[in-house]
């Protein structure tokens, strides 16, 4: 396979391009994705190649954009529909939650929805409270959906390819601050399985579970902690729904400690579910309560002076990891 450096953004773009090349049933629709190429450039050049009938500029109508995808998907096409910012998921929630996620089940299995919803999540651009959210937990609560959140260009291309080929509604979340991240990406088309996590770093002392941009921050924190003699295992979930609980639990059974890291608000975030699953599946292996690192319980602030304290970073993640390691073993505590 020939590899070359490609950005996260262009890895996404290449997955769409190759899927459209391979399958005439694949089309894309969304706000500003055609002539303009998408506000984040993720659809750049696709309309020039495939034409305005296959890369469709839509009105600013998030409900109708998702509805367009649903109706086309049940009619046998393989739509990719874009919601410019993840915050706009809220504008389209009925079509996503009450329609796309449920049609198959409600119709007794007769409907198939090969629908990919793409969107851009995450903070760090001073985009303030309506353009910075991480709402993945909201989507993970809905049976019928699949939720994907890549942390690097290689995964982006393979997971986006899998989303497009998937016969269920998927939500592919791109992190805005990873768009320019580069990495080695094969030119050939390839697919990474949905629902399978990746061990991004092996370690003995603690399992750090993360995804998206925070996965990279967690890796930075792990490097720092290595200098302090703390050996972190870092797991990249890659797919949030369905969740690869097995990989997480197997790791925790070896390390006996776990920290879940995400950019979303900590309360009722995905970390709560993962912590619950760890204690259900590996309670007897734990030497400390599962810790969570996430955003505090407030909207995302505008000013960089505030936002930098809102979004977790390698420093706050390292602090969270030290916290679970500082706790004495339960047995040791009892013997004192």
């Amino acid at each position: 396979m020939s590899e070359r450096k490609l950005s996260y953004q262009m890895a996404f773009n290449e997955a769409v391009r190759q899927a459209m090349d391979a399958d005439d049933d694949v089309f894309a629709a969304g706000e500003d994705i055609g002539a303009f190429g998408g506000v984040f450039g993720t659809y750049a050049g696709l309309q020039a190649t495939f034409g305005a009938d296959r890369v469709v500029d839509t009105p600013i109508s998030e409900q109708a954009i998702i509805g367009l995808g649903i109706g086309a998907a049940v009619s046998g096409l393989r739509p990719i529909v874009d919601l410019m910012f993840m915050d706009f998921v809220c504008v389209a929630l009925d079509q996503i939650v009450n329609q796309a996620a449920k049609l198959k089940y409600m119709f007794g299995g007769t409907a198939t929805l090969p629908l990919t919803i793409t969107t851009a999540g995450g903070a760090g651009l001073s985009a303030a409270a309506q353009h910075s959210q991480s709402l993945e937990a909201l989507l993970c609560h809905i049976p019928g959906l699949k939720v994907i959140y890549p942390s690097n260009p290689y995964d982006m291309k393979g997971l986006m390819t899998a989303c497009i080929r998937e016969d269920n509604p998927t939500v592919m979340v791109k992190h805005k601050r990873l768009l320019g991240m580069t990495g080695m990406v094969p030119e050939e088309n390839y697919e990474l399985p949905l629902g399978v996590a990746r061990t991004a770093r092996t370690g003995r002392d603690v399992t750090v579970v993360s995804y998206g941009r925070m996965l990279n921050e967690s890796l930075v924190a792990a490097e720092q902690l290595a200098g302090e003699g703390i050996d972190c295992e870092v797991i990249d979930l890659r797919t949030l729904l369905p969740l690869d609980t097995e990989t997480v639990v197997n790791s925790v059974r070896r390390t006996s400690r776990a920290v879940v890291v995400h950019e979303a608000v900590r309360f009722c975030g995905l970390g709560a579910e993962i912590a619950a699953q760890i204690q259900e599946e590996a309670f007897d292996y734990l030497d400390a309560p599962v810790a969570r690192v996430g955003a505090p319980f407030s909207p995302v602030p505008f000013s960089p002076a505030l936002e930098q304290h809102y979004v977790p970073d390698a420093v706050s993640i390292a602090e969270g990891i030290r916290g679970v390691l500082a706790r004495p073993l339960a047995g040791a505590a009892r013997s004192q």
Partner: protein
Amino acid sequence: MELTRDVQMDLHRRMVRIRLFEEAAGRLAEAAKLPGFLHLYVGEEAVASGVCAALNDDDQITSTHRGHGHLVAKGGDFNRMMAELMGKSTGYCKGKGGSMHISDLELGMLGANGIVGAGSPIAVGAAFADKYRKRGQVAVAFFGDGATNIGAFHEAANMACALHLPIVFACENNEYGEFTARSKTMAITDIVDRAAGYGMPGVIVDGMDVLAVHEAAVEAVARARRGEGPSLIEAKTYRYYNHHGVQNLGLKYRPDAEVEQWKQRDPIFTFEERLIEAGTSTADEIEQVWAALRDDIAVAIQFAEDSPLPHVDQLLVDVYTQRTH
């Protein structure tokens, strides 16, 4: 528009099928044999029948919470419909959808829908697929007057016009959005006024006159098929029963006299008078239509009652499509 005897008798038959199915469902609900909500289509038969008779089998429709009539008019099977209403495993949705989600994708019926207005964006997607594949199919979105007050409808209507899609917006204006009179929830009288705001033609038809509905539908569907874009039909109609359930008179939000007035213009009986008067049919032939369909209903009820309930092992089946490719 001159219609052949076959077409006229087909329109009549579709309406009688709906009436008989709905009246039977109402009786079963009264006897507590149907779980859940029941939104009856009785009184509005001319709309679904007139529109669906203008469609081919592979044209797709989206429906509403009051959706049985649309499925029957598209050719729905009584047995599987009745079984679904009873929550049986032999139903259209294997007992997982019920009245509000009844569907038959093979007949192009993309589902009744429990969310008011939510079908229109999905119909836009179906119409997009029709245009994309250039196979000459069209989509029809059925919705009520109340649905035109929700954002999803406006988004769908605008997008359909902006993308010039082969779609017909078929509004069943029955003068009530659930339990509130239309006049209290919008400042216009005619839904059709909204069509111009999206840049599509609109027409008002008497929704109690199946020939008028059919004529408008044939024209709108032909226009869509020719690639000339969306249009809107507003059919002025009425539901005899309550928003849900089987009560028809003594309701707090509408006068009984109004119900009686609309029933004088019953879409089936007035059409039958015209058929006989024009010599297109006879009272005997019409009675035979009713009798044969009553038998079909009896068979369907028996089929549904004899059918098994879904087994608990089906609870988690079909949440996701399992991959085969």
